[in-house]
């Protein structure tokens, strides 16, 4: 059964286009999606997933189960960076450990979307409020990551952190943490802002002018699957290019980026079971825990923890964890879900 799930995933259009991108790089094709076209698709996917999520959130309402699930997701996005940090600190300095930890505490929207597509193909239901969990997991992980970086900074760094710039922007108490900047990067980051904004708009439109829903449908719903395929083609190209960087990252980080996802997914499975989530929501919850951010977190870390080496946190999240989750993780987590979670 598990192997059939793996096959069903491998033979789906989005995953096949992902492979096409990877293969292109490996065999030396010059296929590329020139910038800023990938950004068009990533903005589109965020807008569409947010809008649809908000719309379904309006239909399901904000009951206790919804709030509990979202709360649990936020807690996971606070805990995962902490445990990851402790582990990563064994081999890495504080800045890099914190940045990578933040990435794994946060989420990958494309992994989530691919899991949703997979559930659609299996005809397993899931709830729109999971998108709200997705949207709310990015910021806390960033904040935790920055705090960890600052706490582990050598003393002299802490003092002088912001000296070179205008002081209006910062509150230097407690180790030079520039709260305004951190919160701005955590909550107003372009991708977080668009996702949450679209979620709210989807909610409002569904609640107050439902006639608009049908008119959005061709754009946000019908086009979605094909656009995902197109974007995954590019993700495959980019992920394969990142693989080259892994020589620098070393065996420890490679191991981490392949083992962290299933471990975090297992914790997610446990939490889902405790919360009594349906099979579909459990898979999505596991995927949220298992996936790592390569958009919002790197953008924030680059500004707030410039001492960390971007190629470490980008290469692991994008070059290993993302392909692992999309190709093997999703069907694996689904097999576990089917085994441990009773059919709704």
């Amino acid at each position, binding site marked *: 059964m598990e192997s059939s799930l793996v096959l069903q995933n491998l033979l789906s259009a989005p995953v096949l286009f992902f492979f096409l991108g990877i293969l292109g790089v490996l065999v030396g094709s010059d296929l*590329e999606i020139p910038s800023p076209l990938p950004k068009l698709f990533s903005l589109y996917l965020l807008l569409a997933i947010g809008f649809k999520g908000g719309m379904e959130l309006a239909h399901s309402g904000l009951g206790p189960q919804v709030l509990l699930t979202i709360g649990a997701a936020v807690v996971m996005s606070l805990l995962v960076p902490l445990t990851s940090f402790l582990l990563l600190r064994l081999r890495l300095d504080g800045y890099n450990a914190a940045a990578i930890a933040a990435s794994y505490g946060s989420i990958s929207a494309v992994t989530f979307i691919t899991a949703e597509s997979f559930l659609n193909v299996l005809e397993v239901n899931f709830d729109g409020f999971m998108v709200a969990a997705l949207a709310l997991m990015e910021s806390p992980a960033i904040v935790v990551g920055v705090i960890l970086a600052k706490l582990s900074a050598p003393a002299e760094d802490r003092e002088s952190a912001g000296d070179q*710039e205008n002081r209006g922007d910062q509150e230097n108490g407690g180790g030079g943490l520039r709260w305004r900047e951190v919160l701005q990067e955590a909550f107003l980051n372009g991708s977080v802002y668009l996702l949450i904004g679209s979620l709210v708009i989807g909610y409002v439109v569904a609640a107050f002018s439902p006639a608009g829903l049908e008119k959005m449908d061709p754009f946000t719903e019908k086009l979605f699957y094909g656009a995902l395929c197109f974007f995954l083609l590019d993700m495959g*190209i*980019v992920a394969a290019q990142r693989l080259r960087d892994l020589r620098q990252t070393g065996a420890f980080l490679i191991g981490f980026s392949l083992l962290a996802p299933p471990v975090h997914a297992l914790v997610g499975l446990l939490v889902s079971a405790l919360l009594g989530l349906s099979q579909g929501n459990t898979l999505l919850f596991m995927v949220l825990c298992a996936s790592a951010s*390569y958009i919002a*977190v790197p*953008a924030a870390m*680059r500004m707030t923890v410039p001492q960390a080496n*971007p190629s470490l946190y980008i290469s692991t999240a994008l070059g290993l964890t993302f392909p692992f989750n999309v190709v093997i993780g999703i069907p694996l987590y689904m097999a576990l879900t089917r085994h441990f979670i009773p059919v709704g």
Partner: protein
Amino acid sequence: MKRIDLFLSERELNRVCKAITAAGAKGYSVMRHVTGMGPSGEISEGMDFSGLGANAHVIVFVEDAVLAAVGKALKPLLKRYGGVGFVSSAEPL
């Protein structure tokens, strides 16, 4: 007159442009979607959609007298966030 060429991550662009103006330059030009290689590794076009973004190339033509002020304002930013800067001579057309 001096010409300053800066290459840095587009994420720091706002900050750098503000610093340039504050230091007294009368103008500057920005090209984005720049890729390249430097002390801290390679920035490829494929990363453009990721959170890292690509590089930007900033060109500033300033009077000799302003060069020092611009350099002073930019060097700490380049040091903190990465990026490089070069100076050469020029004159108005």
